[in-house]
């Protein structure tokens, strides 16, 4: 299953990069969202997929016995999801303000600061 997910991850990265390369700011943000999903999935997949044994200690037991999914990447991804959410919320509002202030959603017209 990891193998399959490797392909899914590749497609997610490709799609996100394609979207980020668009000139419309909305597409840019959608690209960013896909990108964060791709990175999260990547962490999840490369640290190994385990079916049906979440890292929860059953009632009455002191520890988990047998195979259990690796809890550490899960914790990392959780943090990463929250952080990505914060950043994306910011980015979403940013593009709206940018559109209001600049008056276009075409990124190619937003080059006054550089040139």
């Amino acid at each position, binding site marked *: 299953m990891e193998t399959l997910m490797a392909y899914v991850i590749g497609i997610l990265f490709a799609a996100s990069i394609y979207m980020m390369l668009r000139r419309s700011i909305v597409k840019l943000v959608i690209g960013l969202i896909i990108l964060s999903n791709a990175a999260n999935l990547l962490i999840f997949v490369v640290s190994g997929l385990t079916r049906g044994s979440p890292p*929860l*200690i059953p009632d009455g037991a002191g520890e988990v016995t047998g195979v259990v999914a690796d809890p550490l990447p899960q914790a990392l991804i*959780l943090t990463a999801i*929250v952080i990505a959410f*914060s950043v994306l*919320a910011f980015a979403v*509002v940013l593009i709206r303000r940018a559109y209001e202030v600049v008056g276009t959603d075409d990124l190619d017209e937003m080059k006054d600061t550089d040139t």
Partner: protein
Amino acid sequence: MKSNTLILRTAALAIMPLQLMFSVFLLLRGHDEPGGGFIGGLVAASAFVLYAFSFGVGSTRKLLRVSPKDLLAVGLLFGLASTIPSLLAGEAMLTALWWQLPLPGEGYLKLSTVLVFDIGVYLAVLGTLMTFVIGLMES
């Protein structure tokens, strides 16, 4: 067209308390089951978002009483406060401290810096999301 309806408003009043209750539930038992401060905070926030969608921003502000930023600040301070006992105790920062308070009957109430921290997370998440939503809806 006018956006809120009687049905939505009334349903919101019914659903929202459930969401809030459930969010606290998620917060409190997150140490042992799926949940925790973050998830709890998100559910609480969605309760207020529902309210805001149904009754508008002004009412939501009134309902919240404090500004979302204050919630956020309190949450962050809670999060930081959870580090202080360990520092006072001379332990490394963020060392969890647990106190067991005997309850009437056989149970114990487990109080810990971890819980304080989780509450901080809950409030911070709630404050943040309400800041987003109220800010966006007002503009």
